[in-house]
C-alpha cells in the first residue's frame, strides 16, 4: 500500500457526489414534485449509512484489494450516476396514488434503492480510504470536505450554463476523471495501467450512450397534460438553479389563464403563452393587445380592489412573473410601476425573445423591473432614501405565486418563505405612504387556510408597528377562487368602504371583513356552510383595541383545525397548516375523501424521518451482529457494549449536530443574503471548506495540543459562537441589511469561518483515536455519521417548523456538549 492517501481523487469525487446530490434534487423536482424529490433524495443519501455497513462487513477483503476496490468504486459511481437516474425516471411512481395503490410503495422502494447506489459507491470509497490510512484521518476528512465545498459552488455554476441532463453528463465525466487520478495515485506503475485506462474509456463510451435520453416528466404534471392537447408545443426552455422554465404555445386552444375571475366577466383574455416552472406552476405571458380595453378582465378579479378605492400613482409588484399584475396596473393607468422578480431568467425571456409578444412591458418608461428578492430591494431603497424611509408607495401588491393544486394539497409545507412573515409584512407596510395599501391575494380553499393565516400575520405586523384599532385597518374580500386582503397604516374611511361594497357587489364577490361589517353581510354570494372567513376575521379582530389580551383570537387560533398562527422569520413556514388533532380526525374519514384535506407536505416529512430512522437502526445494528460473532475468533472485533454505545452516541450526535447547525445557518443567511442563488453556494461551501481546514488543523496548527484539549476548545467555541449567533445574528443582519451584496458575502464568510473551523474538528479527532486494535470500527463510525446526517436534515426542518431555527441551533449546541462529555468520560475510563 502507498504511504500517501489518494487525496486528489478523493477531493474530486466528494465534489462530484455533492454536485450529484443537488442535481438529483433538481432533476426530480422537474420530473416529479419538489417534496417527493426531497423525500427520495434524503433517503438515497442513506447510501452513506449503507457504505459503513458494507465496508464493516467486507473490510478484510476490501483492505487487501484497496488498489482495485477504490478506483473501481469511483468508476462504478461515475457509470451508475447516469444509468441509475435514467432507470429511476422510468419507474412509474405516482405519489398521489400511494394512498390506495400498494404497488406505489414498491416503486418508491425501488427508487430509493436505485438512487442510493451511487452514494453507496462514493461513500464506500471514502470510507475505505479512512480504513486504509488511519493515521491520516484528519487530512482525508479535510480533503473530503474541501472537495464537497468546491462541488457546491461548481454545481450552481454548472446549472446556470447547462441543462440538468447535460450537467448529469458533466458530473459523470467528473467521476471518470477522479477514477483516472485515483489510478495514477495508487496503482503501482506496471502494465495494469493500460487495462485501467481501457476500462475508463469504456465507461466514457457507456456514459455518452446512456445520457442521450430526454427527461420523462410525470404525466400528471401540468405541462405534460397541456402537451396532450393538439396544437401545443414547447417553444423555448431556460434552465437555472432556480428551476426549468418552459414556454408552451397552444395554437388551437388558447390558454386563457386568468385565475380568480368573476363569474360575471365576459371579456375573454387575449392570446397567451404558457410559462411553466419545473413543468408545473403555470402562469401566462399575455400578448399585449392593440387596445387596453381588452385587458378589462383583469379588473374582474379580487386583486383589482385597491384600484377602485383610490388613485394609485406609485405601485410596487412583488413577483412580476409573466407580467399580468403589470398589465392590470397598466389597465388602471398607474403612473409608476416598480416590479420585483426573483428569477432572472423570466426577466430575460420577457425582455429578449418575448419582448415584442408581451408588448415590452418590462421596458416601458413607467415600469422599473428589479431582479432579485423583495426584501433586498426594499432594504436597498431604504438606504438610498434614509431620511424618508422610502415610504411612498400607494400600493404594494403580492401576486398569487404558487399554483392552486400544489398549494391546496399542502405541498409547500416544507418550503421556507420569507415573503409572508410578520417581519416581511412590517417592512412592506413601512414602505407605504400613510394612505397606501398592502394587497395580498391568496387561493380560497375549503376549509379556508391561507387567507386566515395571512390575516393573523397582518394583525401581528400591525401590532408590532404599534398601530391602534387594528380592525379599522383591514379589509378582506373573496371570490369563489381567490381572496384579497388589504392592510393600511391609516383606518379605512367611509368612502373607501362604499367603493369596496360597490366593487364586490358588481363582481359577485363576498365581503369577509371591513370596519363596521354586520354578520348578515358576509357569506352571501359564494356560500360556505358557515361564514368561515367572517367568523375568523371577527375572532382575530374582536378586541383590536387591546390585542395582547385578545381572548377570542387566542381561542380561535388554538381551536381552528389548521395551524394559522402567524409565520415569523424564525419560523418562516407560511404554508405549514398541519395539526396533529386534525390529522387523526381526517384519517378516520379516509373513506369519505378525508385524506384530501391532510397537508401532505408535512406527512411526507414525517414519513421520510420514520423511514430514515428505521433504515438507520438496521444499518447500525447489522455490523454489530456480525462483529459479535467474529469477535470470538478475532480480538480486534471485541469491544464492550458500553464502549460501543459511547462510540455510537458520539458519532451519531456529531452527525446530527453538524447538519442541524449547517441547515439553520443556511436559513439565517438566506434571509441575510436574500437570494438563495447566492446564499446556498456561499453558506454551503463556506461550511465545508472551513470545516475542512479545521479538520486539517487538528494535525497541523493545533498538533501541539492534546486531543482532549483540542476537542474542549473546539466544542466550547462552537457552543459560544452558536449561542451568540442565535441571539445576535438577526439584529446584526437588520443593521447591515442594506450593504451591497459583495460586502454581505464577505461578512457571511467571516461569520461562518470560525464556527465551521471548529465544527470540522470533533469528527477527525475521535476517528483518529480509534487507534490500533479498534480500526475495525472506523467504517461503523462512518456509517453512523452518514445515517445521522440524513436524520438530521429532516429533523432540522421538523424542529424549525415547530420551534424555530433558533432552537435548532441550541439543540445542536447541546448535542455537541454531550459529545464532549462522552469523550471525556471515555478518556477517563480509557475506552476508545
Amino acid at each position, binding site marked *: 500500500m502507498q504511504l500517501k492517501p489518494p487525496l486528489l481523487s478523493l477531493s474530486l469525487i466528494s465534489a462530484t457526489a455533492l454536485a450529484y446530490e443537488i442535481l438529483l434534487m433538481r432533476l426530480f423536482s422537474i420530473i416529479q414534485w419538489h417534496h417527493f424529490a426531497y423525500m427520495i433524495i434524503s433517503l438515497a443519501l442513506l447510501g452513506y449509512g449503507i457504505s459503513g455497513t458494507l465496508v464493516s462487513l467486507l473490510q478484510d477483503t476490501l483492505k487487501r484489494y484497496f488498489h482495485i476496490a477504490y478506483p473501481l468504486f469511483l468508476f462504478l459511481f461515475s457509470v451508475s450516476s447516469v444509468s441509475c437516474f435514467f432507470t429511476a425516471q422510468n419507474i412509474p411512481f405516482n405519489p398521489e396514488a400511494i394512498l390506495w395503490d400498494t404497488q406505489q410503495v414498491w416503486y418508491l422502494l425501488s427508487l430509493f434503492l436505485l438512487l442510493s447506489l451511487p452514494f453507496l459507491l462514493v461513500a464506500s470509497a471514502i470510507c475505505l480510504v479512512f480504513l486504509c490510512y488511519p493515521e491520516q484521518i484528519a487530512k482525508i476528512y479535510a480533503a473530503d470536505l474541501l472537495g464537497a465545498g468546491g462541488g457546491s459552488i461548481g454545481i450552481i455554476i454548472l446549472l446556470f450554463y447547462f441543462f440538468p441532463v447535460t450537467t448529469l453528463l458533466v458530473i459523470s465525466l467528473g467521476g471518470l476523471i477522479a477514477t483516472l487520478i485515483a489510478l495514477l495515485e495508487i496503482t503501482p506503475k506496471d502494465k495494469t495501467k493500460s487495462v485501467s485506462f481501457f476500462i475508463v474509456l469504456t465507461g466514457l463510451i457507456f456514459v455518452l450512450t446512456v445520457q442521450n435520453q430526454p427527461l420523462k416528466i410525470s404525466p400528471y*404534471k401540468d405541462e405534460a397534460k397541456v402537451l396532450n392537447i393538439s396544437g401545443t408545443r414547447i417553444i423555448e426552455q431556460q434552465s437555472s438553479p432556480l428551476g426549468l422554465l418552459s414556454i408552451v404555445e397552444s395554437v388551437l386552444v388558447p390558454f386563457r389563464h386568468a385565475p380568480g375571475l368573476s363569474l360575471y366577466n365576459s371579456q*375573454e383574455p387575449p392570446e397567451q403563452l404558457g410559462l411553466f416552472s419545473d413543468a408545473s406552476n403555470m402562469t401566462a405571458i399575455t400578448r399585449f393587445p392593440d387596445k387596453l380595453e381588452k385587458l378589462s378582465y383583469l379588473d374582474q378579479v379580487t386583486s383589482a380592489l385597491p384600484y377602485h378605492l383610490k388613485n394609485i400613482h406609485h405601485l410596487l409588484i412583488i413577483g412580476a412573473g409573466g407580467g399580468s399584475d403589470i398589465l392590470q396596473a397598466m389597465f388602471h393607468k398607474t403612473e409608476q410601476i416598480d416590479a420585483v422578480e426573483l428569477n432572472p431568467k423570466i426577466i430575460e425571456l420577457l425582455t429578449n425573445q418575448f419582448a415584442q409578444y408581451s408588448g415590452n412591458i418590462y421596458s416601458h418608461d413607467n415600469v422599473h423591473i428589479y431582479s432579485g428578492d423583495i426584501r433586498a430591494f426594499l432594504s436597498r431603497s431604504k438606504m438610498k432614501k434614509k431620511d424618508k424611509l422610502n415610504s411612498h408607495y400607494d400600493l404594494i401588491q403580492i401576486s398569487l405565486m404558487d399554483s392552486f393544486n400544489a398549494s391546496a394539497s399542502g405541498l409547500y409545507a416544507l418550503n421556507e418563505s420569507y415573503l409572508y412573515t410578520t417581519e416581511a409584512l412590517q417592512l412592506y407596510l413601512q414602505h407605504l405612504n400613510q394612505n397606501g395599501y398592502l394587497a395580498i391575494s391568496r387561493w380560497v380553499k375549503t376549509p379556508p387556510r391561507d387567507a386566515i393565516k395571512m390575516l393573523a400575520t397582518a394583525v401581528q405586523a400591525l401590532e408590532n408597528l404599534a398601530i391602534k384599532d387594528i380592525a379599522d385597518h383591514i379589509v378582506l374580500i373573496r371570490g369563489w377562487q381567490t381572496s384579497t386582503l388589504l392592510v393600511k397604516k391609516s383606518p379605512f374611511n367611509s368612502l373607501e368602504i362604499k367603493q369596496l361594497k360597490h366593487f364586490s357587489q358588481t363582481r359577485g364577490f363576498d365581503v369577509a371583513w371591513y370596519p363596521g361589517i354586520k354578520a348578515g353581510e358576509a357569506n352571501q354570494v*359564494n356560500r360556505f356552510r358557515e361564514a368561515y372567513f367572517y367568523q375568523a376575521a371577527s375572532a382575530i379582530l374582536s378586541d383590536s383595541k387591546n390585542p395582547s389580551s385578545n381572548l377570542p383570537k387566542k381561542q380561535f387560533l388554538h381551536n381552528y383545525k389548521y395551524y394559522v398562527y402567524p409565520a415569523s422569520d424564525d419560523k418562516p413556514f407560511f404554508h405549514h397548516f398541519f395539526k396533529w388533532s386534525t390529522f387523526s380526525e381526517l384519517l378516520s374519514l379516509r373513506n369519505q375523501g378525508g385524506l384530501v384535506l391532510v397537508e401532505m407536505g408535512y406527512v411526507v416529512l414525517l414519513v421520510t424521518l420514520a423511514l430514515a430512522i428505521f433504515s438507520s437502526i438496521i444499518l447500525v445494528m447489522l455490523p454489530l451482529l456480525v462483529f459479535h460473532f467474529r469477535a470470538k475468533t478475532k480480538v480486534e472485533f471485541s469491544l464492550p457494549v458500553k464502549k460501543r454505545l459511547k462510540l455510537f452516541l458520539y458519532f451519531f450526535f456529531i452527525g446530527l449536530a453538524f447538519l442541524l447547525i449547517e441547515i439553520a445557518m443556511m436559513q439565517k443567511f438566506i434571509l441575510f443574503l436574500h437570494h438563495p442563488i447566492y446564499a446556498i453556494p456561499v453558506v454551503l461551501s463556506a461550511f465545508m471548506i472551513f470545516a475542512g481546514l479545521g479538520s486539517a488543523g487538528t494535525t497541523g496548527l493545533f498538533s501541539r495540543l492534546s486531543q482532549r484539549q483540542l476537542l474542549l476548545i473546539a466544542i466550547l467555541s462552537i457552543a459560544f459562537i452558536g449561542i451568540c449567533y442565535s441571539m445576535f445574528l438577526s439584529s446584526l443582519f437588520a443593521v447591515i441589511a442594506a450593504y451591497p451584496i459583495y460586502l454581505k458575502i464577505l461578512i457571511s464568510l467571516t461569520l461562518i469561518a470560525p464556527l465551521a473551523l471548529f465544527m470540522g474538528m470533533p469528527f477527525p479527532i475521535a476517528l483518529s483515536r480509534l487507534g490500533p486494535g479498534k480500526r475495525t470500527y472506523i467504517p461503523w463510525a462512518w456509517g453512523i455519521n452518514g445515517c445521522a446526517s440524513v436524520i438530521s436534515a429532516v429533523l432540522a426542518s421538523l424542529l424549525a417548523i415547530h420551534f424555530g431555527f433558533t432552537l435548532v441551533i441550541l439543540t445542536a449546541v447541546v448535542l455537541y456538549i454531550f459529545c464532549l462529555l462522552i469523550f471525556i468520560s471515555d478518556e477517563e475510563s480509557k475506552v476508545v
Partner: protein
Amino acid sequence: MKAMTLQKWILSISLFFLSLAFGLFISSQTLASSMEERYMKKRQHMIQLIEQDVHQTSQYLDTEALDTKVLKAIATVPRHKFVTPDTIEQAYHNNPLPIGYGQTISQPYIVAIMTDLLKLTANDTVLEIGTGSGYQAAVLSELVHRVYSIEIIAPLGEQAELRFRELGYTNITTKIGDGYYGWQEQAPFDAIIVTAAASHIPHALIEQLKPGGKMIIPVGGNFTTQQLLLITKQPDGQLQTQQILPVRFVPLTGEH
C-alpha cells in the same frame, strides 16, 4: 377400406373440433355471464359503500341520502368498461383510477355526489366539459334525456365515443374540441358539469345555463377532489355559488 377409414377420420376430427368449438362457445358464454354477475355484485357492493359514506357526510351535503335514481344509475353503468385493461380489477374500488394522458376517472363516491347535486330530471339536457373515460356521461345518460360531452384530448374523446356506441348509449353526443364556448347549437342546458381543469369559468357556459339550472365543478388535484363548486343560476339570472366539502369536517369547533 382405406377410404372409409379416412372418411371416418375426417368425420371424427370434424366432430371433435365442432364439439370443442361448441364447448368453448358455451363456456365463454357462461364465463362472460358469470363475469358479468361478478361485476354486478362488485357494483352492488360499491353502491353500499357510497351509501354509507353519504350517510356519514349527509349533514354537510344537505341531504340525508342520495337520490335513489342516481344510485340506480351508478348500479347500472358497467364501470369496468370505462377503465384501462390494467386497472379493470380495481374498477369497483371506491378510488379514482388513471385512464392515460394524465387524466383520471373520478372516485365513484364523488361521481355520485356530483350527479346528485345537479338534481336532474328525466327531460333534462346536460352538457359535460371533459368527457375523459366517458363514465360520468354514461351515469348522466341513465338519468336524463340527452347528454352532450366535449373532450379536448382527441384520443380520449375517440375512445369514449367508441365505448358509447358499443354499450348502446344513444343519448350521448360527443365532440372533440375546445369547451370554452360550450355547445351553442344545443343550448340552453338544464345542467352543466365541468370536469376539465380551467383557470376560470367561461362566460359562454354561464350564458348557456337555463335560469334555475345548476353547474358543478370539482376542484382539486389529479386524482382527488378537494371541493365542489355548485353554481345556481337564479330565475333572474343572478348567480349563487356554494363551496361544498365532500367530507364530514368542520374547521371551526364552535367554541367561540
